């Protein structure tokens, strides 16, 4: 069996590292080792998926422009009063 070992040091005065340390120690797991490996792989997958989505949306929107479409469906009593006034000129 080929195994590699690394040691990770957590500086508990650093808020980010303290948060990660506390998170790891709140996990209810048989193997912290397995949990960390699984988190690293999931994070890689998420990044790949995010990049894929970004590329897909960019291609789909190429050449499109956005314009506001603001069509009111109905006119109010106030609008009618305004239009009647304008008609009086």
């Amino acid at each position: 069996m080929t195994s590699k070992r690394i040691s990770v040091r957590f500086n508990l005065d650093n808020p980010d590292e303290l948060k990660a340390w506390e998170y790891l120690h709140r996990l209810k797991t048989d193997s912290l080792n397995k949990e960390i490996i699984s988190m690293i792989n999931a994070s890689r997958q998420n990044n790949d998926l995010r990049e894929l989505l970004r590329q897909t949306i960019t291609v789909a929107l190429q050449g499109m422009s956005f314009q506001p479409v603001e069509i009111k469906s109905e006119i109010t009593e106030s609008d009618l009063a305004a239009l009647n006034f304008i008609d009086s000129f």
Partner: protein
Amino acid sequence: MKKINDVFIIGIDSGYGNIKTANCCFPASVAVYDTEPVFKDNLLVYDGRYYLIGEGHKEFLADKTKDIDYYVLALAAIARELNIRKITSGRVHIAAGLPLTWVSGQRNEFKDYLMQNREVEFSFRGTQYHVEIIGADVFPQGFAAVADRLSEFKGVNMLCDIGNGTMNIMFINDKKPIPGNMFTEKYGTHQCLLAVRENVMRIHHTTVDEAIINRVFRFGTADIKEDYLKTITDTATEYVAGIFQRLREHEYNPELMRLYVLGGGSCLIRNFGVYDENRVTINDDICATAKGYEHLAEVSFIRNGGRL
């Protein structure tokens, strides 16, 4: 700018001092050249001539159709609005306006003026535009700015739109505009500017830059020596007193009615007027009238069953 089907409705408030659209404001002045000028900022090229927008000084013309300037300024306004959406061609319906009491007399002429060419090719700031002007509406200035909120005008309300060249006065009573009681006075902020120049020359024997005067008008102060500032603020205070005097001549009574002030001159009322803040509303959105024109064109479109 609003879009209905494939038509862009562009509100253009063609004032004597500035041209306003729903999103832009620029000086209503044009310098024309037969050859390409050295400075090309805000250069509009139309029909083989070169127009620098915002340059020179436009004199007060009661009839805006007397020369081509307001047409060229309208093209610049269309370009500014289209440019916001990165559009360079399209079908455009212009929603414009005239002073309250001039609408009935000049509406058709101004409409024809704005629609003098159906297809227009021009460039502005180095970008080529091709627009088809399919129609134009001419609405009453000032009123347009509040047309979408008439329901807020309970009781008796005097509406006062202070522009650069004119001041328009009308009444909105119990949410309804009163057609027979409207006035247009040639007492815009330009009158105040001229009075300031005259007083500064008379008292200090010098001229003061227009940018400084406008700064005092807008903010009530500027970084200049106290005695110059006093001359400007005293003159502005006198001008505002003159506005209230004219309002009273048209039956303004602060105890019996509310006053709604809008337009570029509304900042003068705010900074130099004496009034009851609970009974006077100041709308200092200088684009409010252009937005109102677009609103009126839109509701008119709906009422007409989809025809602009």
